């Protein structure tokens, strides 16, 4: 009750902010900062500023679409791991085993072909099954036995990485020069040189713009006529597309999208649909937001959380397989260092798109942005060995800044 009366008041004010701006010019900037939409995009603006500085400082060395995309391309497995931890985070859980799982499936996807000579299709099925099964075990240990998820998945991650060690005998698994080879398409898919058909991407882009046009219709100010709003929407979208073409050179981005990048975007779309548009997504979010309330509202929290671990395991397995595709071989600790950046990407999503909530596109964008921030510094002369320092700092600074902003604004 203590929060009650006043928060109704604050809640009610947001709409009037813009209106009030003109009448009270003195504090209009502060008011502007307090608007929810502005608040949640502050971090994005911050990153944009960093890139602007890079652009001025490094010029075309940084503003090279191919190099930027190549960077993201080589980090696709990490970004997918980010989505893997995201699912469990939304359900209020932790999954620290994803890096171990990715290591194991990388080693398996290459080893089962080159050492055991299994058909590749079967190998893929096995890897995915391992991912789902590992996730199921995690989920059961956490939910049915009641083990703290932090401990449970820390342990299982160790076990998975350990199995990878045992299987590989502690040395890198490399397809031999004779005998069993990885399918050509698989290794080709992993390279940046193999581009995704741009026609499909263009269609996707067009659909996305249409979707945006439709979504914006719901934001029509009450005072505006429907037709007028329609015109405004159309014009602003055309302007947006023009900017994307002229300033950001959109065609070049689309031409340079590799298969791996496209697969990541596809997985993102599937995950977004799952979490945003299905009953499951709603239930999982509720389980994470207030477990007791969810149970009393009829949500089977245990089941939803176990499913989240299974999905996380599957995504980790996919990340491992894709890592195998891009590397063509597997060292037994190949994905060990991916855990921190994966979590960093997931946590950045809470400050990039929506204020405070984990979300899919924020994770992908967040992970991408970290990669680019580090990249700029490396181009500027920082030794690549510093990337860990940069990653950690960016994560903490971004999350801390947005937290402080939210507190100040209260």
């Amino acid at each position, binding site marked *: *009750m203590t929060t*009650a009366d006043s928060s109704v008041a604050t809640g009610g*004010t947001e709409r009037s902010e813009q209106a009030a701006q003109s009448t009270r010019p003195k504090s209009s900037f502060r008011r502007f900062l307090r608007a929810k939409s502005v608040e949640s995009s502050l971090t994005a603006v911050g990153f944009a500023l960093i890139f602007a500085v890079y652009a001025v400082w490094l010029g075309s060395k940084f503003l090279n679409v191919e190099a930027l995309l190549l960077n993201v391309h080589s980090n696709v497995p990490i970004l997918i791991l980010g989505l893997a931890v995201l699912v469990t985070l939304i359900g209020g859980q932790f999954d620290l085993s994803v890096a171990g799982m990715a290591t194991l499936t990388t080693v398996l996807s290459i080893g089962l072909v080159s050492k055991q000579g299994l058909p590749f299709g079967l190998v893929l099925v096995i890897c995915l099954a391992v991912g789902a099964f590992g996730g199921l075990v995690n989920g059961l240990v956490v939910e049915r036995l009641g083990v703290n998820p932090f401990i449970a998945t820390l342990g299982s991650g160790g076990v998975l990485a350990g199995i990878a060690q045992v299987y590989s005998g502690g040395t890198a698994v490399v397809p031999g020069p004779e005998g069993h080879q990885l399918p050509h398409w698989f290794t080709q898919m992993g390279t940046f040189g193999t581009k995704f058909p741009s026609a499909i991407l263009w269609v996707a882009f067009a659909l996305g713009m249409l979707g945006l046009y439709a979504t914006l219709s719901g934001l029509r100010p009450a005072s505006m006529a429907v037709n007028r709003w329609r015109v405004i929407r159309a014009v602003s979208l055309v302007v947006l597309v023009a900017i994307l073409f002229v300033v950001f050179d959109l065609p070049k981005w689309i031409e340079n999208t590799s298969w791996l990048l496209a697969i990541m975007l596809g997985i993102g779309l599937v995950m977004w649909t799952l979490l945003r548009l299905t009953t499951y997504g709603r239930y999982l979010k509720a389980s994470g937001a207030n477990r007791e309330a969810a149970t009393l509202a*009829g949500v089977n929290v245990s089941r939803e959380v176990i499913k989240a671990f299974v999905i996380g395991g599957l995504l980790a397995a996919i990340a491992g397989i894709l890592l195998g595709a891009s590397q063509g071989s597997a060292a037994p600790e190949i994905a060990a260092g991916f855990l921190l950046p994966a979590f960093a990407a997931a946590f950045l999503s809470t400050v990039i798109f929506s204020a405070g909530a984990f979300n899919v596109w924020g994770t992908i964008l967040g992970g991408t942005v970290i990669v680019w921030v580090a990249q700029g510094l490396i181009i500027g002369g920082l030794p690549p060995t510093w990337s860990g320092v940069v990653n950690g700092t960016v994560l903490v600074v971004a999350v801390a800044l947005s937290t402080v902003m939210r507190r100040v604004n209260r």
Partner: protein
Amino acid sequence: MSEPQRSGSSEAGGGGAKPAPSAATAAASYEAPSLQIRNLGKRFGANQVLSGVDLTIERGEFVGLMGPNGAGKSTLIKILDGVYTASEGEILLGGKRVSSLRRSPEVGFIHQDLGLVDDLSISENLRLGDKPMRRFGPILNQQAERKAAEKALARVGLYHAPTEPLLALAPGEKTLVAVARVLERGARLLFVDEATSNLAPHEAEVVVETLKDLAGRGATVIMVTHKLHETLSSAARVVALVDGRVNADRPIAGLDREALIALMAPVGAAGGGEEGLHRPAVERPAREHATKGELLLRLKDVYGGRAGPVSIELHAGEVLGLTGVAASGLHDVGLLAQGALPPERGVIELGRDKMRRALVPPFREAQGGFGPMSVRENLTMSSMNRWVGRGRLVAGGREIRACEEMVDRLSIKPPRLDEEYRVLSGGNKQKVVFGRALLREPDVYVLCEPTRGVDVATRAEIYRLIREIADSGAGVLVVSSDAEDIFAVSDVVGVVNESVGKLTPTKDLKLSDLEVLV
């Protein structure tokens, strides 16, 4: 090791605390500073939440601060506590101008969530946030802390061993520990903000009596509460806030319940003529019990949680009310009936196939809603299968329309579906949780503490709503520790004292009978 004179009874109903004007408490006397609030106002954007609030409160006063949900009580308290800054006006403490009372050691705030930690001992809770007593270096002087804690507890009439974990205390006793803590810090001017609203009546009474006792000895108490009888029985003066203004500021003497309600009526509607403001208890509509329908739910000798044996029957179109003290397993009966709590023994029979049951849980903050999720998502959580369209995807349009209708029907404010649940006021949170149950379109409703922490007008609305859903043919089980709730809405009542079996038609009862039974 001083033996605790009264052991901390772990059954939360516990008689651990009594309004004890014992030797230890009677000794102390307090010098509270005076408080003056002049022309205080607060604006959020274009929204004037408080305006022109003038108050002068002298040493030893016991003031009841009342008003409907959204009247600005919490905002006023938050300004005084330094959470918000006032837009205009000034605050004088002991004649000196201050921006807030947060830094003043003579002032203490006790909020609804007491700010205590269950896992720590009583003594550790009392020291929490205060300078530790040290022996030397970082080594704590536990003996001195314990002695101080005993003294502090005695001030509020508690005689537990300070080493006991807070966990073992009943909710009312915890509230008293929170009071003891601010007194220990030197607070003489106490703001008690809804700290009794989650307590069972007899526990709340102990807390209020203790506060009254403190006021009698020179401390000043300003208590925010929705409970009329608390104000009537304890405060010497009532300040009613309505729409951000002081609507009334007068001595309590000569006021009765109706007069007190009238003080909180919106300006212009004064005179108590407003229909919704009357306690429906007064004008209880005589529902014909004969029209009750088929048997929907039968519990036979069911045990579960703290309750048992429970034997009740609920029919279509009937409101069955259960009351009792929370510690006697009252809420467990509700959870058993709804199915959230699986029975340990006994039989639960359902009258229909695929019967839907919906629950309004007893604790709104902990069990009610999903703070960071939207009003829309909160409303439809229990009825998702109704909104799933092609391809198992949630069909937004239908869901949104249903939510808009519900927001309209329950007049949830602000009426925006994308508002986060956590920023709603208490009464509106309750409405959202109600709306969730309604959208499930269940055969049986189980409503636990439906009016906890809501203002008089919302209470009347909720009563009306309960009648409405019973009239539409659903079975309604109302579980409330507030006997008046039960009396006002039920066709049949039962008293829970771990077991419940005997059900009595309400028309054969008087409210006083029911209160005696509890």
